[in-house]
């Protein structure tokens, strides 16, 4: 088998990896912003709750969190996993990843929001902006600019972290590569997987630099 054959036979794994990656991003970025708001909430109990959430998510291994997400229905509610349906595994993977990454994104957003210049809030206030207008029209674009490098970093980590889904049996690219490697008794499938991960990361880095260019103003 040559490299292109191998890449071809990994295609379903690649698809799963791409799906996990894209769905996790789609859920965890907005969720991260929401968690960040919770963390910045003026009501002490709310802020503490989110602080606790973030600290648990960042303080325990992602792989363990995936296990918890997957087995939760059984251990918490006594529902046999078979009854959860065919796609439960995939749903648990997405939920686990999204909840975990939301915590990291929340901290990055928080850094960006709290470092925003007070004068910007005040200028918006005297110009009659509402709180929502101030946030979305004035503060958030500046936060975005400031956090893009850190977010890109995190997204690149996510590309590689998708392989952790292997641990609870989701047949993503790494699982497929491992299977193929033992069947063919060859390292090539691993090389092929590495190439795909690397290409995905390059893509993310490229997208990030495009975004940074779009946000060309200096804050």
């Amino acid at each position: 088998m040559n490299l292109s054959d191998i890449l071809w036979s990994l295609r379903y794994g690649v698809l799963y990896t791409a799906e996990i990656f894209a769905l996790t991003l789609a859920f965890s970025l907005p969720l991260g912003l929401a968690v960040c708001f919770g963390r910045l909430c003026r009501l002490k109990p709310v802020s503490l709750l989110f602080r606790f959430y973030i600290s648990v998510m960042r303080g325990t291994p992602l792989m363990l969190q995936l296990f918890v997400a997957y087995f939760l229905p059984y251990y918490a509610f006594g529902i046999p996993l078979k009854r959860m349906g065919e796609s439960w595994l995939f749903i648990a993977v997405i939920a686990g990843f999204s909840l975990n990454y939301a915590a990291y994104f929340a901290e990055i957003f928080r850094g960006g929001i709290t470092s925003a210049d007070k004068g910007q809030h005040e200028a918006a206030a005297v110009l009659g902006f509402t709180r929502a207008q101030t946030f979305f029209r004035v503060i958030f674009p500046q936060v975005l600019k400031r956090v893009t490098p850190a977010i890109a970093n995190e997204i690149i980590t996510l590309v590689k972290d998708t392989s952790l889904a292997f641990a609870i049996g989701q047949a993503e690219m790494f699982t497929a590569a491992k299977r193929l490697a033992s069947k063919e008794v060859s390292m090539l499938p691993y090389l092929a997987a590495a190439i795909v991960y690397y290409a995905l990361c390059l893509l993310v880095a490229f997208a990030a630099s495009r975004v940074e260019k779009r946000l060309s103003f200096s804050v």
Partner: protein
Amino acid sequence: MAYLEVKDLVKNYGKTRVLGGISLSLERGEVLSVIGSSGEGKTTLLRCLNNLEPIDGGKIIVGGEEIYSDGKRRALKERLKFGLVFQNFNLFPQYSALENIRLPLFLSEKRRLKTGAESLLSGKTAEETAREYLALVGLESKEKSFPSELSGGQKQRVAIARALALKPEILCFDEPTSALDPALTGEVLKVIRSLKRTDRAMIIVTHQMGFAKEISDKVAFLADGKTEEFGAPSEIFGSPQSEKLKSFLSGEKDLE
């Protein structure tokens, strides 16, 4: 009763009393200069007028209507009777010069339409109107420039146009030229001079006594959180009464 009346305004930061009884009055079309040493509360006064700080006592009355008394917050529409130009501009860095003016204008206009208030645009689009204000401060050629591409004086002129576009009845300036090179202050002062109009009052905090003398109808001298002296420029500069004002003026003269 004058158009703007401030009576015994009190403002504390924590336990420190920063303003302990500011009183002044201003008619439409008049310009008031606020002078005083550093740390006497000039910026704080403007911040209270513009509702950036809650007040701890006294009254602010505009057009006979008490809009802010004893720390009670007032409605948003009242805030827009005032406009504020900041010492350090506070332009929005992500928007072009034109957009810095257009966006607040557009949002205000939307709100005005909803509440049935008078339009700010007189039939034009927000963009056209923003462009007119940019021309008014002599920057029509810079509409696409971002704040980071403008000089300090140009930034301040955009900030003035931005405040002006919302047609505030009382436009406040907090040391509008103190963050600028001496070479750039002239262009900004020229713009401010040109804004003197019968239907708009202006309050200018400044350390430039020459400018204050020339442009003002009234001058307030703040000391120890109080209006130590308040009157026409000829009185304040010509025949200062209190020792504090006398020594302040002679100090400022040494600087010039």
